[in-house]
Structure formats: C-alpha cells, structure tokens
C-alpha cells in the first residue's frame, strides 16, 4: 500500500487516511495527512489529478535520449519488433543493458508490473532480454522504456547487432576494470610481501608507514573503480529487497578499505590493501570469463538471425518496384523469383508453385501449392517465379509467431541461478547477523579489537570461494566443450543432467543427415536398362527424392516431351515409347491394379508394364546407432518426435531400436508432448534442428541443435553442436556430470571452509593477513579444482 501523498510504502500498523473525492485514501504519517488535507481544503485537487508520480516536482529536463524514446511509439517503426496479438495485447522483445545478476531481473519485473496496462514482463538474465506484454490502449511503449530508464536500465527493441554491441561495450568495460585491478594488485602484493616479512623481522615504523601509504595509493582505484560492478549489484539487490553475494562483498571491501585507510592515517592497527585488491581481481576475473563465454555463444546464435530478405518486389501499375519488406502492406501483390525466400505470408496467385517450407515445418520434401493456397514467410520458392497477394507482414507472420512462442517458452524455463541465489541469500543473512554479533561481543570485552575482528570475520568468511564455485566450473565446461566444437549457452545443462530421463530427437537432420539415398529396389526388367531410363527421366526433376535416382546411370536415356506433374511425377518419350516415373498414384493412372511394395515410393513404368520400384531414404547419421545405444545403456530413454510421416518414422525407429516414436507432429504438438512429459515429472532433453523445433527446444529442460540448423533453433537451444557427429551428445552429458561433481566439491569446500573459519575468526584468533590469505587460498583451491575441467 502506498501513501496517497508521498507515494512511499505505508508502514504496517499505521491507520491514517484523508478524504479525497468521497473516499478515504491511506497516508503514511501525520505529516502527509496534514499536507494532503491542506491541499484538498484549498481546492487544489488538480495536483493529485495531474501529477506524474514518475516525475519529480522540479520536472527535470529529460535527457534527449529519453525524449527520443517517443519515436518508438510510431506504428511504422513498431512494425519491425512489436507483435500485435489482439486489439488489447501487444508483445515486444527488448534488449536490456546493464543486467548483471538475478537481482536486476527481479527489479525490472517488479517495477514494470507496477505500470498500469502491463500484462506480463519476463526477464531472461542470461540473454539480457525482456519480453513485455501490454495493452496499447492504456500504455505506450515509450512509457515502458522510460520506466526502465527510471530505474537505471536502457532498453531497446531486440536487434541482433544491438545485442552484440552491448556485449562488446561491456567487455571493454570489464577489461579496463580488470587491467586496473591486475596492475594495482601486483604492486600491492609486492609491497605486502615486504610487510609480511617485516612482520617477522623488524621493519622500521617509518618504512612500514610509507609502504602502507603506497598500498593505499594503489588500492584506491581498485576499490573506487574496478569494484564498481559489485556495489551496483549490491544496491540493485537492496532495491529489489533481496540479499546477494555482492552485499557482503561490498561491505567487506568498503569496510576493510575504510578501516585500512583509517589505520594508515592514524598509523595503528593493520591494513588489508593487498587482500581487497586481490579479492577484487579474482572476482572480476570470474565474471569476465563468464561474460566472454556468454558473448561467444550469443554472437554465434544471433549472427545469422536474419531469416527474411530485406527487400521485396512489389507490383505497381506500370511494372514493379523494389521496396523494404517493412513497407509491405496487406493486399500488396509481390513477385518472388525461383530460389528466393518468400518475404511475407500470402496467398498464391500463380497457377502452381513448389515451396520448401522445411525451415518452418521440418518437412523434407517441397510442397506443391495451388492458386489461393497459403504461402509462408521464410519458405523458399523452388521453381518458377510466382506472384503472391500479401496477407500478413513482419511481426504478424507465422514465422514471427514461432519466434514469439519460443521466447515465451524461454521465459518460463526454470532458472538455475535463482536456486543458488536463494541458498546464498540465507548464508549471507546468517553471515551478516554473525558479523554484527561478533562486533557487539568484542566491543563489550575488548572494544579496541572489535572492528578488526569483525572485518576479519567478513574477509575470512567472505563468500568469495562460494561465489566462485559455480562460475569457475561453468567457465571450465564452456571452454572445454568449445574446444570440442560444442557451444554451451547457459548453466541449465548442469541442473538438468542430474535428473535427465528422456531424450527426444527430431528425425530429419538430427538422426538422419537430411540427404536422400537409394536403399532398396525391385526390378522387373534388367537393372541396367532401368538405370538408364530412370536417370534420364529424373534428371528433369528437381525434387530431392530424385537426386540419388538421377545419378544411377552414366549414360542416361535422352527423353523428349517431358512433362512435370507437380506432386505426382514425370512423363517423357524415349524411342517413341512413353514412360512415367513417380508416385504410386501416378503409376496407377496407367496400371490401376498396381500396388507398390512396402515403403517403395518411386516407381518407373511404361504404358505396358511396371519396370521397377525404388525406396529412397534419408541417410542415417553414421553414429546414430552408437549414440542411441549409449543413451539406452546409461538409462536415458530415446524418443523420436518428428514432423515426418508416421510410417517413415516407424521404420527408422525399428532400425535404431527405439521403442517410443511419434510422427506427423506439428510444432505445437511437439511442444505439448514435452510439456506433458515435464508435467508428469520427467526431465526432458530435446535435440532438433528445424525452425519447427525451436518452440520445443526452448521448452525442454535442455536442448541441443546443430550449427547447420536454422538460426532460430540455434537461438532457442542451450547447446549448439558445431561439429557434425551426433555422438557429441555423449560428450555433453559426460562433461556436464563431471562439472556437476566439481561444482559440488567446490560448494562443499567453500561451505566447510567458511563455516569452520567463522568461529575461529569470530574469536579473534586469526591475524588480518592470515584471514586474507585463507580467503585467497580457499578461492585458489576452488579455481584450481575447476581448472581440472579444462583437461581432457
């Protein structure tokens, strides 16, 4: 509940109100009550009606940057990135700068949900993307962007280039901070060595004071500049009412620094300069490596996200013109040349067309379209030029719908980091309370030691090792897998690998190579003659099934008067005889009693008789069987989920010994299958490669795809396999399990160390330098353990 006048939260137990327009409004204190009553008594209601709670009383001049935000309300510009769901609902994906940790995510979600007209706001901390759903009647996009700016985040419509530039900026920023911290730490450490030895032998007080001064000079930029990200994280956490590791880190850094400065000036006590510099450097290094890994993965996925062409050819009264696709309107008539990508959804005007919709449907064969049939943006026109009447553009297309579906699926994914943060939250709360108690106790017994012992507690038990435990292991596995040609995009693999029980695989392009070959044939006449005839006729076709058949003979027959019946087959004349090659239905037009053999789908026949039948299949990946067997052996159940026909899926499943398989699935059916499995408590991995797989890739507990896969699939997947073999799945699972073990060891060590050092430090039995050393060694041990991941 907020105070009617000052908009601050009303503390519990306060029961004050003012009467405004006939109803009682809560206020936080007698002061606000008095002010509000005065304002209302003097008939100045206008103030409450017109005030803008996000603006201050002095109406600060908005920076130009914020004024420019209004540009994003322009419908033409919005076309590119805002998806119009219904009259009352719009969705946009935004890239948000400065997101450093989970706290930022909570903060943004909470602040946005306060705006009137927001329906949903979900932040993905790893990809730094915000998906926001709002009612355009109540709220403008610029107001959302302004609200974000109000809490210190710059958000822009998601654009791959923008996301990359952000990473570059942030990387440079980190390099500078790291550089400063690294150089300064080396200097301070050198001085510290002098001091350590001095502590043993005799160091003249003047020299010691001088060395302290030197350390102060070097440590200051580290604390004031390099360590800034930690303070920012701590403040964000406070703002979001959470505790994170940045809070004790900041207290320890600033506390130890202030105390050391005080010690240097007054020439009493001890200094901690070397430990705080080292500490900052270690923590920054960890975050920097994490950033690099994320950047590389993201770059790879977004680089080729441009699926649609930039330009379209639109018919005009006197010919045609080339225009940007965002300028296309519903009802426009466009032309698409053979081999070009169709830029917008539409209905076909030409008499016939063959389009490759594999990006969207996963269907490996081109589809025939009749006039009036729907064609989909992102599919490729195979044969002759076609004309299309536009029915949907940009964000309204089916393709955009799939992207949006995938974003939503990404958003509801369990966030591993939140669990870790929660445990850390309790640890940190306990740590802070213990620090306060330690201070009080020591102050009571020996006031002169209280501050130093408390700082020793904070430094020695600083959850430094704890905070490094996960990131270093994660960085380790990311690097190791990268070397093997596997890109990891998040930590989810580590969380889900433990419970993994079902592995769903797409068929075409995943279990198979996506290339067709002849697997079986049944000849009625001698096969050499058949080969000549088949390759001669099939060379006129551009159907993928025809590729292996057209290469059967070195001396193909020379056909004449070849006719292509879309969706059925080819007919041609050779030596004054007519031949047909094509589907069962096509041949039955000549030979009504003919029945094709099991799974033989290409038949050649003359007018008189059927000559041969062929079975053409997609080629199985070489290592598919080995991989499937390995999965079964380890107790993971493989399941095939494919958009291809049930019979073809069945034969493949039998070949691989997979007992559960589902064919003829639409993207939403795949999604529903995985969701159902998850609802019944299964942890499901999905391996796929098509755009049609992208929603299910995003929804699965973990997902893998190939670098040849569609860009969308790559964006949705957690793991991208750069090198071909499917057996990399094994590498991923084994590495993830190993990383999990190492991470657990790190956690256990960090906790055991922190918990056991706590009483010792609290009793004041640890010298300052020992506390710092202990903390650093503990961290080094964690890093060293994680380094084992780099080894094969």
């Amino acid at each position, binding site marked *: 509940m907020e105070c009617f006048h000052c908009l601050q939260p009303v503390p519990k137990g*306060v029961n004050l109100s003012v009467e405004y327009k006939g109803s009682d409004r809560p206020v936080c204190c007698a002061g606000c009550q008095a*002010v509000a009553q005065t304002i209302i008594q003097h008939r100045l209601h206008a103030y409450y009606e017109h005030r803008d709670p996000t603006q201050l009383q002095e109406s*600060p001049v908005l920076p130009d940057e914020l004024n420019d935000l209004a540009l994003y309300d322009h419908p033409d510009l919005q076309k590119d990135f805002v998806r119009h769901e219904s009259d009352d609902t719009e969705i946009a994906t935004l890239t948000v700068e400065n997101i450093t940790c989970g706290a930022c995510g909570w903060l943004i979600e909470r602040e946005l949900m306060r705006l009137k007209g927001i329906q949903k706001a979900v932040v993905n901390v790893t990809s730094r993307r915000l998906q926001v759903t709002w009612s355009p009647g109540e709220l403008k996009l610029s107001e959302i962007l302004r609200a974000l700016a109000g809490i210190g985040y710059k958000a822009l419509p998601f654009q791959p280039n923008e996301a990359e530039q952000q990473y570059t900026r942030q990387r440079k920023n980190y390099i500078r901070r790291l550089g400063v911290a690294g150089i300064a730490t080396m200097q301070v450490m050198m001085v510290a060595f002098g001091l350590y030895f001095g502590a043993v032998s005799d160091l003249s007080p003047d020299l010691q004071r001088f060395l302290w001064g030197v350390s102060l000079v070097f440590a200051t930029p580290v604390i004031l500049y390099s360590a800034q990200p930690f303070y920012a994280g701590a403040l964000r956490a406070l703002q979001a009412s959470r505790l994170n590791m940045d809070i004790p880190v900041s207290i320890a850094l600033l506390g130890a620094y202030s105390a050391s400065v005080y010690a240097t000036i007054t020439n009493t006590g001890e200094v901690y300069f070397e430990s705080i510099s080292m500490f900052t450097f270690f923590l920054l290094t960890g975050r920097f490596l994490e950033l690099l890994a994320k950047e590389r993965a993201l770059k790879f996925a977004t680089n080729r996200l441009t699926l649609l062409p930039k330009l379209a050819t639109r018919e005009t009264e006197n010919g045609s013109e080339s225009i940007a696709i965002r300028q296309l309107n519903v009802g426009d008539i466009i032309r698409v040349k053979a081999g070009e990508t169709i830029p917008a959804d539409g209905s076909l005007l030409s008499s016939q067309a063959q389009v490759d919709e594999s990006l969207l449907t996963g269907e490996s064969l081109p589809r025939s379209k009749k006039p009036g049939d729907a064609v989909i943006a992102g599919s490729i026109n195979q044969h002759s030029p076609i004309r299309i009447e536009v029915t949907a553009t940009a964000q309204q297309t089916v393709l955009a719908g799939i992207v949006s579906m995938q974003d939503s699926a990404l958003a509801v994914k369990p966030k591993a980091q939140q669990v870790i943060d929660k445990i850390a939250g309790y640890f940190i709360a306990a740590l802070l309370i213990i620090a306060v108690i330690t201070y009080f106790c020591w102050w009571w017994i020996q006031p002169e030691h209280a501050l130093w012992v408390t700082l020793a507690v904070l430094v020695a038990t600083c959850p430094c090792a704890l905070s490094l435990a996960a990131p270093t292991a994660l960085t380790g596995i990311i690097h190791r897998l990268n070397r093997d040609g596997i890109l990891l995009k998040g930590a989810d693999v580590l969380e889900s690998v433990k419970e993994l029980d079902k592995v769903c695989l797409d068929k075409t392009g995943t279990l198979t190579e996506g290339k067709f070959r002849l697997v079986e044939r049944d000849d009625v006449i001698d096969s050499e003659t058949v080969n000549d005839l088949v390759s001669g006729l099939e060379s006129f076709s551009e159907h993928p099934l025809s590729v292996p058949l057209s290469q059967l003979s070195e001396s193909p027959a020379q056909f004449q008067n070849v006719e292509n019946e879309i969706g059925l087959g080819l007919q041609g004349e050779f030596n004054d005889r007519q031949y047909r090659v094509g589907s069962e239905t096509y041949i039955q037009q000549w030979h009504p009693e003919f029945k094709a053999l099991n799974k033989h789908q290409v038949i050649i026949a003359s007018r008189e008789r059927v000559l041969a039948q062929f079975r053409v299949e997609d080629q199985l990946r070489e290592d598919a069987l080995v991989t499937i067997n390995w999965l079964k052996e380890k107790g993971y159940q493989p399941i095939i989920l494919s958009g291809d026909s049930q019979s073809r899926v069945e034969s493949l499943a039998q070949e691989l010994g997979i007992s559960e398989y589902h064919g003829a699935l639409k993207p939403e059916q795949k999604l529903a299958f995985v969701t159902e499995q998850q609802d019944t408590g299964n942890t499901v991995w999905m391996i796929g490669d098509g755009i049609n797989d992208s929603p299910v890739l995003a929804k699965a507990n973990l997902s893998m795809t190939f670098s040849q896969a569609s860009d969308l699939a790559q964006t949705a997947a957690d793991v991208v396999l750069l090198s071909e073999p499917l057996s990399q799945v094994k590498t991923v699972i084994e590495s993830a399990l190993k990383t999990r073990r190492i991470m657990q060891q790190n956690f256990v060590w960090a906790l055991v160390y922190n918990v056991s050092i706590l009483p010792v430090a609290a009793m004041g039995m640890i010298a300052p330098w020992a506390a710092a050393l202990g903390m650093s060694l503990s961290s080094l041990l964690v890093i060293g353990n994680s380094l084992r991941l780099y080894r094969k």
Partner: protein
Amino acid sequence: MNPITQSADLITALLMGLAGAGHCLMMCGGIASAMGINTRPHHVWLYNLGRVSSYMLIGALVGGAIGLFAPEGGYTTVVLRWLAVLFLLLLGLYFTGWFAGLVYLEKAARPVWNKIQPLAAKLRNKPNGFAAFLAGTLWGWLPCGMVYSALSWAALSGSAGNGALTMAAFGLGTLPAMIAAGHFSQFLHRFLQAQGVRTAMGILLIIYALWSMLTLIKPFFQ
C-alpha cells in the same frame, strides 16, 4: 562532549535524514507543486533552504533550552541519551515497517501545526523567491516523526549552536535527490523509495541504536 562522539552524532542525524530522503522529496515536492511555488528550480531550493532553516531553529531552541535549564551532567545526559537512542530505534523500526510507534508522536504534535497551517496556506502562488523561502520555513513545522527523532539528538548536543548543527546535518540528509540533477535524481529517487533500501537503512539505524544501548549499559558492569 568529545569531538568523536559529536561527529558520530552528526553522522547519525545525517543517516536519519538520508533514510527518509525519498519520503521528504515527494512530500515537499507535493507541497511545492500544489502551492504553485515550483515555477523556477531555484525556488524549490529556497523552499528547502527554508525548511532546513526551520529545523535548525527548532534544533537551536531545543539544544539551547537543554543547555540553559537542565542540570549539568549526571542524570540529564544519561536520560537524554536513552531518549535519543529510543527515538533512533523507533525510527529504524518505522523504516523497516516492523513497528510504527512514531506515528502516535506525530499525532500528538498536530495542534501546533494547526496554528501554523493557515499561515503556510496563505503563501500560495507567490512567484518570488522570498515567498518560497518563507513557505519552506512554515512547512518545516509539519508534524514529522523523523524531525522529532533527530531533535532528540539535537537535545543531546547541549547547546543552541550544536543543536542547530545537528539539525542541519539531518536536513542535509533529506536533500540528496535534490542535489543530484535531472535524470539521475529520478533514478536516485526510485532507489530511495524502494522498500528494500528503506529496510536496509532501518536495520542500520536499529543496529546503531542497539550498539548505543550497549554503550549506555556497559558502565554498570564495570
């Protein structure tokens, strides 16, 4: 009083002001907007200057009165310190939202304000700097638990000058969002307004209050 204790007290007053800065800003901003005295940025400054002047005046009165009339040393200081610590604790509890006892004190002070209120309201829509300053001095007498908590520390200072100084430190603490300009102040304001930040500030005040209590109890055990 020794200088370290005194500067610690000033910092306490500053912290108290800082913890309430978000509240002060909207509160006074509201008054300034509604009363039409925010036409120029520097009027807002003058308004706030007026407000802090009033705090200093009250601080001087309280500090001076204690210095003049209360018996030197002995129990006076102890009682005042306990009072100050109690107020600090109450303020901390108020900010964390755990206990709102301070509000009763504010209610008790309403009659004083009712006398001043008509005067303050008269200064509406006067577009000159002096009027803005004057309005600030009058609105500075609003019943406010934070001011009373800070006053208990001014009372401790033992003289009119130090009392004024304590209240100046408190007033300074209430200003940060004003000092920062434009966009940044909007960000700062949102930050100070967040319940998490208020809770953290409150806990800090409570810890400080508990520690102060220990300092008061300790002599009896030695």
